[in-house]
């Protein structure tokens, strides 16, 4: 049968697909009783997706996408993905699961087939209206999964399918999903607990795949004692413990509060114990669900920490001069003790005593370099990672998906895919800074507990100018745009705004309106073109322009709010749906 099928095909590629199809039939013979598998339609990082046709009990024939997961996936991960699909999927442009087949380690998730065009292939021909609708439906899908406490973690065009003819959309691929602290997806909770018990490393799947050439990371020695960022803090441990007037406060402010507080939680204690379980795992470059443990913790830790942390936060923000540093370190002393689990020892105290003066300077010394590396979830696709992911913020929430959606919008508005292209997280962060500004990034990072220094000042770009230039709608200079080299050591501008980090204060909104109100290197480097958007539309021209001659300011305003560097103030998917850009939808 293989031979016959294969002979029919012309290219080597499809013959390869046929071999894979036959192997799949062999791996799960049950499939052959139900499906006629005709093609391979996708290969993601950890799966192969096939096209299958089946006859239903009601007599109709239907097409399905059969996702064959790599058999090295842990069953709990597989089950969590399946549960996301069955619980949250099937509506709101989120793909559902029709069924699932398993034989031993081979699992196939059956989903309705969604014919689609790869964004990378159609990005040059999309109309602005298509982009607007695409983002709108993406936001609907995100709002929906976020309501279930699912952080998708891998939002990118390949995972948000688009059928141009039928104007349909499908969010797929919950293979990297994580639960928020109050997730409704049981298995995402289970995973959290498992991970907490097992301990583990920071690596996400794709992350590991990418870095397979790189030397394995030093094994993580600690875990953070904090909950993951709750998108719906009203029921989260963190929230209930950190606020007594929970019900009266608005959701937004709670989210902000939770974010701000939790993101500055110092590690509870170094996991310096060497129990059998942990030391075994620690040798592994990527323990099962390793990164999930970062957002998990013992309930005790979650309930006891926040108040203390808030105090800590203010202190550490003020401890710029060495004299204060001791106080700060001393202030942290009791925390590890209080939050330690039975298996953790306060060995950290010794190291904590050793302070150095490298903080926010252009130096590192043996003291700070001997500290343990911080571990934080970073699964996902490099160019789509939010700043809080890139800077290893241990508490990450649904806002990371919104950032990724913002990157998609940036990509679609500028006609560039991928937009960010970086092999390293700090390169990715720098690329973000070239768009959003280094000062702005430094300020935002401070709000989530990270001190970022960039030796060069990178000015924030005006988003419209940037997108129109990259789209070729504005003349571009002959040469690579030289960015101003201020060579200002940014560490000199540090810590000017403690309020940014204080949950009760609204951080200064530096760029509330992203459209065209700030000087930028691009607009100054380029001849400033006259507005053409409001000129009388010539029908023919309009067709050719596909709406790109009249992109409303709202589009860039939304982009600005999705690409808010601070997850605490970043727009949520629910808020995005209320944005004026979508007022007629």
């Amino acid at each position, binding site marked *: 049968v293989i031979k016959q099928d294969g002979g029919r095909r012309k290219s080597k590629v499809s013959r390869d697909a046929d071999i894979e199809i036959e192997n799949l039939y062999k791996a799960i013979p049950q499939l052959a009783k139900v499906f006629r598998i005709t093609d391979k339609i996708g290969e993601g990082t950890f799966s192969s997706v096939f096209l299958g046709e089946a006859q239903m009990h009601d007599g109709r024939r239907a097409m399905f996408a059969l996702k064959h997961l790599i058999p090295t996936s842990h069953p709990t991960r597989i089950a969590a993905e399946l549960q996301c699909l069955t619980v949250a999927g099937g509506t709101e442009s989120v793909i559902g699961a029709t069924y699932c087949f398993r034989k031993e380690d081979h*699992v196939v998730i059956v989903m309705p087939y969604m014919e689609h065009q790869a964004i990378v292939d159609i990005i040059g021909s999309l109309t602005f209206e298509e982009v607007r609708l695409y983002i709108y439906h993406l936001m609907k899908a995100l709002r929906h999964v976020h309501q279930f406490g699912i952080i998708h973690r891998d939002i990118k065009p390949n995972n948000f399918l688009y059928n141009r003819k039928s104007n349909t959309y499908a969010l797929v691929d919950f293979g990297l999903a994580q639960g928020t602290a109050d997730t409704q997806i049981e298995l995402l909770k289970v995973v959290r607990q498992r991970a907490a018990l097992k301990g583990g490393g920071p690596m996400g799947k794709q992350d590991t795949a990418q870095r397979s050439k790189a030397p394995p990371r030093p094994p993580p020695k600690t875990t953070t004692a904090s909950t993951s960022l709750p998108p719906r803090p009203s029921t989260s441990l963190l929230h209930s413990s950190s606020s007594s007037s929970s019900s009266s406060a608005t959701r937004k402010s709670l989210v902000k509060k939770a974010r701000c507080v939790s993101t500055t939680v110092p590690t509870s204690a170094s996991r310096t114990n060497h129990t059998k379980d942990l030391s075994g795992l620690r040798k592994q470059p990527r323990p099962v669900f390793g990164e999930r443990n970062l957002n998990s913790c013992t309930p005790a830790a979650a309930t006891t920490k926040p108040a203390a942390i808030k105090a800590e936060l203010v202190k550490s923000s003020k401890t710029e001069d060495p004299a204060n540093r001791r106080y700060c370190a001393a202030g942290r002393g009791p925390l590890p003790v209080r939050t330690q689990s039975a298996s953790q020892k306060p060995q950290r105290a010794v190291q904590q005593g050793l302070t150095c003066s490298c903080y926010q300077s252009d130096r590192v010394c043996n003291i700070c370099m001997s500290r343990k*590396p911080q571990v934080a979830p970073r699964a996902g696709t490099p160019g789509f990672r939010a700043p809080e992911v890139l800077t290893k913020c241990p508490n990450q929430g649904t806002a990371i998906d919104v950032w990724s959606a913002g990157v998609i919008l940036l990509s679609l508005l500028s006609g560039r*895919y991928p937009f960010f292209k970086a092999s390293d997280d700090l390169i990715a962060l720098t690329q973000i800074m070239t768009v959003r500004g280094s000062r702005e990034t430094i300020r935002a990072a401070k709000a989530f507990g990270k001190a970022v220094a960039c030796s060069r000042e990178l000015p924030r770009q005006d988003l419209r100018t940037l997108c129109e*230039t990259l789209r070729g709608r504005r003349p571009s200079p002959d040469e690579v745009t030289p960015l101003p080299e201020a060579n200002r050591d940014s560490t000199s501008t540090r810590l000017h705004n403690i309020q940014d980090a204080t949950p009760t204060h609204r951080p200064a909104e530096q760029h509330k309106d992203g459209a065209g109100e700030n000087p930028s290197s691009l607009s100054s480097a380029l001849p400033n073109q006259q507005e053409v958007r409001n000129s009388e539309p010539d029908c023919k021209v309009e067709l050719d322009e596909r709406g790109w001659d009249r992109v409303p300011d709202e589009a860039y305003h939304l982009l600005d709010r999705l690409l808010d560097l601070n997850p605490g103030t970043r727009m949520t998917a629910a808020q995005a749906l209320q944005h004026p850009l979508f007022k007629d939808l």
Partner: protein
Amino acid sequence: KTSGKAGSAAKQGFQKCKAGRISKPFVKVEDSSRHYRPISLTMPNMPVFNLKTLPPCSPFFVHDKVNPGIKQQGHRGVKASASEERTNVRKKKRGGYCECCLIKYENVSMHLKSERHKDFSKSDEYLVVDQLVSTLHCNFLHIKSQVERMKCSVS
């Protein structure tokens, strides 16, 4: 010591940091708790917008030779998308990490045949999947697969 991450960057021509002054231009990130090792990276070539790149490729010129990316993408045909290329690269390596056995492997098919993995694949670890599946309804009609497949593939 720096993280593996910086190590990989070093391979690509970026400098990982050592004790001392960090050469410019650099980016440094520290947790404000100061409990963790700072991460920093010297980038001899800071990312800049390369406005000579044509849509749809990334505006960031990639300087490292390991990752020539951009030029090819601009010229690629419809089907040979960026994602597909990554896939092909990955296929060739095939190495990875097994979440079930908690070990790294060089060759996935070899690993799947190993005793350790086979034991795991027959274990009741998969009950969590089965349990979920048992809540789903199978609405598929059974077909005679062999005959059916040949018939259809001819048509």
